[in-house]
């Protein structure tokens, strides 16, 4: 069984193990404390959401908090009792913070809720079992508290070559995993096989340090008895062989790429505690409500491992292990290498608490005063990540964040091996933590400022585009009002004559109905227009931010909206055409109509159309001018449009010149107005595109000026941008054409 090859990792240290103290007594079972304090964040990710209210009676194992989002976990009542508070309490936290906790007062009856095991898990789908594990609140019990269901699901992204069970327990003093293996060997093996069933790895390996002979013997015995395929690999005792990445290297010779996870190279790591918790959840239906924790340190008269309910205050356990108050100098959660100190013993045990180290002064003396770094390189020899701690210290002290990052500061696992060996007693890990947080802060600030810059530039481009549009509209209005003035003068006598004529009753009766439909259509058109505008705005923003997927989706929306709008317009025009008398009846002044009126009205309309066409011609001319100023590619398309628009305007003028009240003008009218609207929207689009191109090219030119060394790439970018524009233009041109065609056919 132990024939597997064991690789090695760089560095590592051999601190005093101090493991025997806590293994003298059998596994203890402390009494129920007065209250259990259950923090809502016992895992990595979102805090759980309480499911209970103050005063509620809960049964042992009943859910009291539910997971909140994907990366979260459930929480269950460790015993039966009453919820007495949901409030902020001090928790075990490196910075001594408080957090929201559910406080449970045990009733001492330990009445279990109904347990729901999954006896037929082998027949079930893996996802069902995984979701059961999630319901049972299983998280990684090795230290980080990563929700197990997320880890198991993540393991599916690549075929697993190795499923590694971490039983190394390399930290000095801690013996909780050792005890767990001895006490629950069979459960552990069944738990591992359960997980293996879920992940289907090629090879299942338990990695254990050679300083746990009893546990190794127990495991070997059980594995042989079960005829299991699980491989037990004994690795030499060296801190930090229990680090996930180090253990993977020890057992597989592979390294987890920097910034990636073991799952990325087809490896899954689980702590032994998690496997046992998984067994209990599936076989027995028991949620995660207790764990084995080591109580050790020279301030305790009876150091031992205890099977403890989650939420038990540390003070209760210290009293159980016979604490000598006067001796206690440092109270640590976790081991002496990576644990953190506590302010008070009022904090509770959580899912990840593997050890409480109550040390006296002699055992863990205060660190010696920091001396100068003499670059002796002992830290470098000890670093399991092959970093240069001495150089990182230099950069940390001088706040050279970029250099620190360049020297792979973020590959530091904060194991503390460097600080341990440092002859100058430099708290290296502390320096690195500080520098890491400084870098994170700087990164966040950089992202924020980048976003602000992008927003500003996008806004500017948008404002430019809007200003251009407004200006064009203003000109169009000016033009239109000028021609209207002429028109009203001309039509004035005509209307006077119509006023004299009598009121047509039948006409006035039919009018309201048609009036309503046109009104509705008009409102629809207005809504459609505003929608289109909004979409175009979003499109511009998306283009600014270069969000490719959004761009294509928005593009689709825009074209759809345009089509819908055109349809509405034509419908509206049809409605108008169907009831030529509608317009006069709209205005109270023109309520009386003569037979001549329709022709008159048509003439008026034709005139307005002509004016609009003229404005459109002007608009296109302006766009052309702008395009010519900026760049060549789209000019041709705009010229084409200009020619079209001019042609249309001329036609309209011609129609106007022949004042015969024949049908052609009225027939042509709806098509023309639709075409005009369409053209206007196209021009709008054109302008936005032009403004965008301008902004982009300006940006690129600026970059070209500021960094001439990148000239080649930037000019390439410019070329690419222009090419994109040309493509966009041709697309638009075809769109215009197709719309023209549709108008002609209608």
């Amino acid at each position, binding site marked *: 069984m132990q024939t597997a090859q064991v690789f090695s990792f760089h560095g590592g240290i051999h*601190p005093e193990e101090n493991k025997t103290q806590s293994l003298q007594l059998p596994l203890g079972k402390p009494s129920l404390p007065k209250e259990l304090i259950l923090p809502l964040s016992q895992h990595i990710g979102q805090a759980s959401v309480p499911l209970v209210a103050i005063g509620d009676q809960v049964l042992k194992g009943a859910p009291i908090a539910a997971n909140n989002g994907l990366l979260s976990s459930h929480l269950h009542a460790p015993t039966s009792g009453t919820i007495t508070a949901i409030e902020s309490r001090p928790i075990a936290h490196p910075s001594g913070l408080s957090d929201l906790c559910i406080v449970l007062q045990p009733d001492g009856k330990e009445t279990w809720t109904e347990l729901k095991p999954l006896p037929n898990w082998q027949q079930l789908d893996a996802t069902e079992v995984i979701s059961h594990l999630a319901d049972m609140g299983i998280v990684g019990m090795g230290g980080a508290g990563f929700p197990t269901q997320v880890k198991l699901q993540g393991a599916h992204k690549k075929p697993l070559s190795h499923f590694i069970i971490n039983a190394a327990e390399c930290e000095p003093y801690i013996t909780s995993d050792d005890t767990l293996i001895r006490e629950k060997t069979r459960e552990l093996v069944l738990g591992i096989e359960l997980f293996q069933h879920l992940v289907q790895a090629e090879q299942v390996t338990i990695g254990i340090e050679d300083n746990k002979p009893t546990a190794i013997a127990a495991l070997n015995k059980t594995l042989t008895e079960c005829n299991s395929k699980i491989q037990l690999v004994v690795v030499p005792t060296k801190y930090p062989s229990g680090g996930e990445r180090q253990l993977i290297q020890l057992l597989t010779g592979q390294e987890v790429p920097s910034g990636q996870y073991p799952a990325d190279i087809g490896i899954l790591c689980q702590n032994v505690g998690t496997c046992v918790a998984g067994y209990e959840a599936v076989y027995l239906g028991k949620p995660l409500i207790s764990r084995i924790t080591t109580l050790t340190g020279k301030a305790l008269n009876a150091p031992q491992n205890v099977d403890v309910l989650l939420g038990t205050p540390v003070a209760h356990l210290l009293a159980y292990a016979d604490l000598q108050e006067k001796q206690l100098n440092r109270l640590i959660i976790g081991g002496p*290498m990576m644990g953190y100190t506590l302010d008070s013993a009022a904090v509770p045990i959580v899912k990840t608490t593997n050890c409480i180290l109550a040390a006296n002064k002699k055992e863990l003396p205060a660190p*010696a005063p920091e001396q100068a770094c*003499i670059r002796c390189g002992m830290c*470098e020899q000890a670093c399991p990540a092959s970093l240069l701690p001495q150089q990182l210290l230099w950069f940390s002290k001088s706040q050279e964040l970029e250099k620190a990052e360049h020297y792979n500061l973020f590959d530091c696992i904060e194991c503390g091996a460097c600080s341990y060996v440092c002859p100058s*007693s430099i708290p290296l890990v502390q320096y690195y933590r500080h520098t890491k947080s400084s870098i994170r802060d700087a990164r966040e600030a950089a992202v924020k400022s980048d976003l602000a810059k992008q927003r500003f530039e996008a806004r500017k481009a948008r404002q430019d585009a809007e200003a251009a549009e407004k200006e064009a509209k203003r000109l169009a209005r000016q033009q239109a009002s000028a021609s209207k003035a002429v028109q009203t003068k001309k039509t004035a006598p005509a209307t006077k004559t119509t006023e004299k004529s009598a009121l047509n009753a039948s006409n006035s009766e039919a009018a309201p109905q048609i009036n309503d439909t046109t009104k509705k259509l008009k409102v629809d058109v207005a809504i459609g227009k505003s929608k289109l505008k909004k979409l175009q705005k979003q499109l511009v923003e998306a283009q600014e931010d270069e969000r490719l997927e959004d761009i294509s989706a928005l593009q689709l929306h825009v074209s759809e909206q345009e089509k819908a709008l055109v349809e509405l317009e034509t419908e509206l025009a049809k409605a108008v055409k169907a009831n030529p008398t509608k317009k006069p009846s709209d205005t109270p002044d023109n309520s009386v109509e003569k037979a001549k009126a329709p022709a008159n009205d048509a003439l008026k309309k034709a005139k307005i159309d002509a004016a609009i066409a003229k404005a459109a011609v002007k608009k296109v001319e302006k766009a052309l001018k702008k395009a010519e100023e900026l760049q060549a590619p789209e000019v041709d398309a705009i010229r084409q449009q200009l020619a079209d628009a001019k042609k249309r305007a001329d036609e309209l003028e011609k129609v106007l010149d022949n004042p015969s009240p024949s049908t052609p003008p009225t027939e042509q009218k709806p098509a023309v107005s639709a075409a005009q609207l369409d053209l206007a929207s196209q021009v709008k689009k054109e302008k936005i595109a032009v403004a965008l191109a301008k902004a982009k090219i300006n940006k690129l030119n600026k970059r070209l000026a500021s960094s001439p060394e990148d000239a080649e790439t930037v000019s390439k970018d410019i070329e690419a941008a222009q090419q994109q524009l040309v493509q966009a233009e041709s697309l638009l041109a075809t769109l215009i054409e197709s719309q023209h065609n549709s108008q002609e056919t209608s």
Partner: protein
Amino acid sequence: MALLRITSPHTQRAGRRTSWVMQMVIYATLPGIIVQTWLFGWGTVINLAIAGVAALLSEAAILAMRRRPIRFFLQDYSALLTAVLLGIALPPTVPWWVTVTAVSFAIVFAKQIYGGLGNNPFNPAMVGYAIVLVSFPVPMSQWLGVSSVVASGEMLSFSQSLQAIFHQLPVIDSYTMATPLDGFKHKELLDSQSAFETLPALQAASIDSWLWVNLAYLMGGLALLWLRIITWHTPAALLGALLVMSGLFYVFDTSNAASPFFHLTTGAAMFGAFFIATDPVSSCTSNRGKLIYGAGIGILIYIIRTWGGYPDGVAFGVLLMNFAAPLIDYYTQPRTYGHKKAKTGLKIGGDH
């Protein structure tokens, strides 16, 4: 209860402090010092005493000026180590003021001016040595010979040594002689073979005396390796490069070049390899860097010995490589766990 709040790790390797490191290096020089005293008389010990006092006084004076805790820094033994290295390197009968100049210059200008321990770019002992070597070439080139080969036929007594160092010893010339390296350097037109036959400095007794000195320092160096205070990289690279260089030239030009064995066992070869080049502050820091750094010194030692103006080249070789150390460090970063390639160069970024 007032609990100690402190970040991890909470435990430290007991006893191995910086002062312990410095003391161990000092102790490791003892075999060499004993052999030197055995062969060349009490001069070395007297030098060491003078150097020690001068180093502590100048260090204390500058610390006082810089308003640093004097006691705290004096207890790190780094000044004393510089003094010991210089006391060993200087000729045994060198006048006291040469020693004082060298030591105080080393402490004040090569170390404290840059910010004290840990911040000096150059090896302080070698800066002090180079300064007096170029400033006072005559006393610096007066090495004693072993009693069997010098004119007087005996060793300097303790009082004679004191007299030579603090006043003047008229008969000193009958006790001094060229070192083997010096003798070989000035063999003029003789070829190697005849030089080894005729020159007094190259006789067996003289060469053997330096062999013993070098063996003693090799022993001390191995002790440092065993204690893991130094790594094998620098000394191995230095001696290896010296071996390769001398071997290469010995093969091609046997008549004019000395054997690799001669180069490795005379002068400051071992002392330089294990005690001078391994100064962590001013040398390269990564293992690969140390290899390049040591090899560079080895090559420079051979070049200076063979074609330079001085018989031995450890001091200048080390100082020249001190210049290059930061650059070498940039290009010899180890490959970090999880990275395909080691990062090199000064350019920030360029991951994996």
